[in-house]
């Protein structure tokens, strides 16, 4: 069984500076993969590249192959023109983007927007469109009559569900959700995640979930990839990565997650910030901020597999234990 989505060596540049710098990603049908990282690490760009939705100022290269169960042969996204992409978008892969609940057209009724999404990508009779809208709204837990309303007549949570319904309009096999729970409070967040979970189970959807919130990803995803400065620095099954992180960056990200019931207190912040695309450091990109950096880190570590699908880009992996870090020591090259 071939992968649903196979991304090889994806590179995106802006004015020659790398935003995404060699990303490989493989998604099986029905799988949920999380993309984690701080803002600027390239996760959203990666997702948008899959749908070729990048702004013209960004140049994209690399092989992206989509093999939906419904299609007769694999779709080579990198070779598709804009017109060709129109047949792919929404039909095979769709997007729930950040701040989506504010993106509904305020002057169109909700059902009209869903209908538009369907008609733009498929040839369907009006009757079927009608039936499909009702079905979609029910699937996301809304009563079909709500479709007749305008966006401002719906509550925040209802709007978020409409966005999910929109993404499902043409029954894609892959949905990309970019920070779907940011700016939602914890109850709504849980409801959205539960909805996505249920949809995965019921419809066999594959999901790429992008978030800077590790907790959200751990809940929903089977596998996770941590991105930093345009590269994947660690990837693997969620349980493995969370119980035994193999990259100092992942370790720090996990440390800043409060675990209720454990010892209280704020983790000390990672000093500095991610590198500018125009000023990527020599060797390992995380070196300037890494408390364990050493001589070897001047050479760029490749992403290598440790075991059971768990891969990391760190010279010193596998890490069985993490030596204590004297936080007062400024990070840098030692020795």
């Amino acid at each position, binding site marked *: 069984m071939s992968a649903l989505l196979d991304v090889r060596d994806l590179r995106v540049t802006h004015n020659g500076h790398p935003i995404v710098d060699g990303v490989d990603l493989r998604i099986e049908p029905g799988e949920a993969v999380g993309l984690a990282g701080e803002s600027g690490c390239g996760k959203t760009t990666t997702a948008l590249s899959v749908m070729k939705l990048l702004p013209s100022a960004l140049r994209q290269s690399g092989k992206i192959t989509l093999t939906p169960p419904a299609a007769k042969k694999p779709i080579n996204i990198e070779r598709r023109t804009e017109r060709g992409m129109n047949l792919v978008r929404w039909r095979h892969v769709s997007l729930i983007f950040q701040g989506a609940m504010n993106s509904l057209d305020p002057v169109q009724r909700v059902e009209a927007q869903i209908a538009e999404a369907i008609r733009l990508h498929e040839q369907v009779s009006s009757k079927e469109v009608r039936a499909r809208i009702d079905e979609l709204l029910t699937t996301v837990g809304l009563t079909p009559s709500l479709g007749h309303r305008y966006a401002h007549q719906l509550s925040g949570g209802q709007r978020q569900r409409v966005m999910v319904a929109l993404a499902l309009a043409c029954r894609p096999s892959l949905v990309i959700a970019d920070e779907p729970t940011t700016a939602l*409070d914890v109850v709504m*967040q*849980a409801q959205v995640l539960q909805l996505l979970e249920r949809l995965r189970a019921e419809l066999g959807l594959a999901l790429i979930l992008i978030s800077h919130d590790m*907790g959200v990803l*751990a809940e929903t995803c089977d596998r996770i990839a941590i991105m930093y400065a345009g590269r994947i620095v660690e990837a693997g099954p969620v349980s493995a990565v969370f119980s035994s992180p193999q990259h100092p960056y992942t370790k720090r990200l996990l440390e800043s997650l*409060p675990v*209720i019931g454990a010892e*209280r207190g*704020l*983790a000390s912040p990672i000093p500095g910030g991610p590198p500018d695309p125009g000023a990527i450091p020599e060797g390992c990109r995380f070196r300037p901020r890494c408390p364990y950096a050493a001589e070897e880190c001047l050479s760029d570590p490749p992403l290598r597999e440790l075991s059971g699908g768990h891969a990391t880009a760190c010279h010193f992996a596998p890490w069985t234990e993490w030596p204590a870090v004297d936080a007062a020591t400024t990070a840098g090259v030692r020795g």
Partner: protein
Amino acid sequence: MSDVLMDVSDLAVHFKARKGTARALDGVSLEWRRGEILGVVGESGCGKSTLARAMMGLVKPAAGEVSLNGETVAGRGRVRELRRRVQMIFQDPYQTLNPRQRVRAIVAEPLVVQGVPKDEHEARVRRAMEDVGLTAEHFLTRYPHQLSGGQRQRVAIAAALVLEPDGLVCDEPVSMLDASVRSQILAVLVELQRRRNLALVFITHDLSLAWSLCDRIAVMYLGRVVEQGSAVDVIERPRHPYTQALAAAIPVPSANGDAKRELLSGELPDATAIPTGCRFHPRCPRRFEPCDRVDPGLMAAGAPDQLAACLLYDPTQGRAEVAGAADG
């Protein structure tokens, strides 16, 4: 000097909305103690931001009162003192600074408005900048658009510190910041609190953050405090069904599979249509007979200083009602 910096008692704030009167705050009572970090948590729309503004004297209460250091805040003199002793940090770092002012002017503004003598300005501004970790030489001459989100928030904090207040009300100060910047700003706030023995009110919808950071937490729902107590008690051993649902909704990065969680259904009702009886009862998984008639106040529940506004902890209230109904 007593333990309590600010005492909010039975505070009500109403807004006129198209559908009627929105009771944004509907009888809130709180104690804000010196040197402590008080967390205020709740869903959006529960009134926590309104509470912050009421504590700052920015909205006029319809009922109840706010007292500072034991004296009611009423009349110009007292309000002016409130403005000096309590400062506020806002949520959006991109809106919190005047884009046409340089950092120096922004940080010095409180001194200007409050009429602090000019010769003191320079020293105070520098100290505030130092306290938030911004080198004066580099940053005082800059404009906001030359600063990152984290730096802007630091400037806002410096501006809040320059009058040497006793307390800071922080309305979601890090929710719009990126993960690593977030921890930096929190580190600044924690350090300041420690160094200057500031009292902090930390408003957030992020329960885990409130748990890690705060000494005490008040949970708000539809304009009322429905539970309060120490942070550990309230989040780890919540007593009010609403708090229990909130705590259950926190995504858990556990290495094992998914635990089935009982999730709260529906959404926060509109503040113009607050349910009768206990305001949480329509969504409450543990409601019972009198909950739709009796409006519970905060009562002892769980740990010694833990309070919850729920009839489960004083069923005598409910039983009396039921008994009355049966007789009547």
